[in-house]
């Protein structure tokens, strides 16, 4: 009896120790996020409404393996986060429209410089505080994003920032 007990125990322990050794996974996947260096627009920049030339957008993206895509989103931020109520108000007045922008572009490589004027703010855009967000993903699904406070206005002097 005693030997059978010991034998059972030893067998079970052997199974355990073997399984501890046998599982040894290999190299790790990519968990490094892409890096966004947004040069223009800068924090607090005032962007001109109705400028046909478009917003000067200047950015550098880099990743350790492979970039995939980036997305730019601009939405209003009137009066902190209460702006939904002013939306309703703005709609009834019909004078201006809250500007909103949503577009993504595919990119490749480890480093890329982006420069375009594709963001055009129409004449009827409501002036005020807006948020600009840039999201970037790499091929593995790592994502980084940054947020900027921007102002849309009819009168724009030279950039102060």
């Amino acid at each position, binding site marked *: 009896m005693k030997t059978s*007990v010991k034998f059972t125990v030893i067998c079970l322990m052997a199974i355990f120790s073997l399984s501890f050794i046998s599982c040894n996974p290999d190299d790790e996947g990519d968990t490094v996020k892409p890096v966004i260096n947004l040069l223009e627009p800068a924090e607090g920049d005032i962007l001109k409404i109705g400028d046909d030339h478009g917003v000067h957008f200047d950015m550098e993206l880099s990743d350790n393996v492979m970039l995939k895509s980036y997305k730019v989103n601009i939405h209003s931020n009137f009066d902190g986060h209460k702006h939904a109520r002013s939306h309703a108000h703005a709609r009834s007045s019909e004078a201006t429209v809250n500007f909103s922008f949503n577009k993504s572009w595919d990119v490749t490589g480890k480093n890329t410089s982006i420069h375009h004027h594709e963001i055009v703010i129409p004449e009827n855009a409501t002036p005020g505080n807006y948020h600009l967000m840039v999201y970037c993903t790499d091929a593995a699904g790592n994502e980084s994003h940054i947020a900027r406070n921007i102002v849309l206005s009819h009168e724009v002097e030279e950039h102060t920032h």
Partner: protein
Amino acid sequence: MRAKIILAMLLVVSVLSVYTQDSIKIVELENITVTGLSFKSASKRNSALPVDVVGKEFLKEHFTGNLIQTLEHTPGVRSMDIGSGFSKPMIRGMGFNRVSVTENGIKQEGQQWGSDHGLEIDAFNVELVIIRKGPSSLLYGSDAMGGTIEISQTPPPLDNQIFGDVALLEKTVNGTLGGSMALGIKKNAWYCKLRYSEQHFGDYRIPADTIVYLTQRMPVHDRRLKNTAGIERNFNFYTAYQKGRYLSNYALSNIYQKVGFFPGAHGIPDASRIQDDGDSRNIELPYSTVNHFKLTSHQQYAWDKLIGSWDVGYQNNHREEWSLFHTHYGMQLPPEDNPDKELEFNLNTYSSSLKVMIPKSYSCEYRGGWDVQYQQNQIDGYSFLLPKYNRFTIGMFGLLNWKMSKQLLLIGGLRYDYGRVDITQYKDPYLKEYLQSAGYDDNMIEKYEWRSYEVKRNFGDFSGSFGMVWNLKDQHLLKANIGNSFRLPGANELAANGVHHGTFRHEQGNPTLNSERGWQLDASYQHESKGMRMSLSPFINWFSNYIYLKPTGEWSVLPHTGQIYRYTENKAFFAGAELTFGVDLFARLDYSFAGEYVYTYNLDERTPLSFSPPPSMRNTLTWRKDELQFFVELHSIASQKRVAKNEDPTMGAHLINLGGNITLPIDKMMIEIGFSLQNLSDTKYYNHLSFYRKVEIPEPGRNLQLLIKIPFKNKLK
């Protein structure tokens, strides 16, 4: 399939076993004068898994007003915190729906899946906790694959008496003021307890003047994290009746929690929202409230050769998340009623279980059981995350304990579970308008305007385990267990679709998921001799389809989000160990070590899994003399650099904690005073598992805590 079911039924019927949830009661029936210690060793020896019994002394020494933060002092258990007040448990790297918490035999059902949702339990009302690490789904159902935290009652006093206590709790880090009052009576067959507790805490202090959030530096006024205050208001009633072979108990509780969220972490960083409002105790928007009502009953009868028990419970978990009405759809107007109610979940859970146990006939002990649960989840609010659903689960199990010899016990069991989920579709009218105005084409709009589709899924599967307990000469205890466990996907994993605040993530369910399956291997060794004790518990888990949120690389069409995170099945591997060691240095001085390590790996993505607890250890020196006790502890948390995609590495820290307990006899009363000083050096550190980690908010700073408890009792004739 049918053959499988019949097989399982035959097994259960023929064995007609049953495990009574609470071995305490069995022990009690067999032996009235059971001591805490013998119960402790009995429950450890009855399970092939590592079991920690957390008794009154431990709970007193580590009391924090938050049960999970107290249990964190047990290696293998970690607390996932939501600010300074509320937490949820993680065992060996598994949290959320992979850990079950039961109270009085009924599984606690709230919205466990949410990273900012805490556990609704009154810490003052907890007397005994049994922690089972490793696969416990055999006994506790599908969600217990990571382990269980079983909250139980200590046996009633033997003599007739009136008893009670008054407790006061104070903490400096967040200005906690807490109190609890209990009154109870033991009269012959009856035992009743009533407890009311309340805790109020203010904004918590962090050892930092600024935090960096989304690349923007945000000021922290007065080193207090704005709007993290909260309150807790709890009511508990418990009554037990025991006469001869019959035992029953009834428990009624209502837990209410309200906690504010740091507004700087709710959406886009905006300095205007985190300006000091001059009040550190107010709870402004955004905040959440949860009310958990629970009514349970336990009936048990011991025949000569069979013990049968029946548990039944009803729970209502009502959670609301409030945030000033905001939308990025443009066209959505605030609702007429409660315009600022962002999300509401109202979950009703009905559970029942029958258990039978045939105590030792020769060397075998049979247990068996049947349990059933029905859930209804209702939703409301101007935002959408989780749909309305109904969920029904039923399970049956049989378990055999075979005492091969005086030293060797073999335990084997089999379980069959069946589950049915019925998810209601939800169409978002505003999203359609938004997408139209944003210029998406009709195909895209048709695809995305449905926030959730109707999903009707059935799941059914076997799980089983086999283990041994080898008790050599009382000094050595060796355990091993192999289990094949499974878990039904949660409603969130099948059908969530929306942005949960603070995360910026569009989380999307996947209605085609299979039930999660895995093999779990556990071993443990315990040694106890005079003046020395140690334990080592290694484990390995392998999952063929571990369900997690995977970044898809697809941009979400929802405003304010990046890519879609979709629940996905991957092969995953977990391994780790807990090590404890204790030695009596001198007559009154005792040194103890507790350490833990968890390794996680996603075999398909070749990356670690998210929320992997960093390795940690506690070195503690304790000095005891009669009713006096002091301790000093060095708590070291290693850096966690093994992170999943889109998770940030977290630096480690060394924390020094001090504390003591004293019992003062004043006028026939024994007044218990406990004090502790946590994070003595006011070190700035992060908890990799905290909800606020994502937004770079450090953990609370130095904290001085005082607990005064005045118990009283009066013997009755």
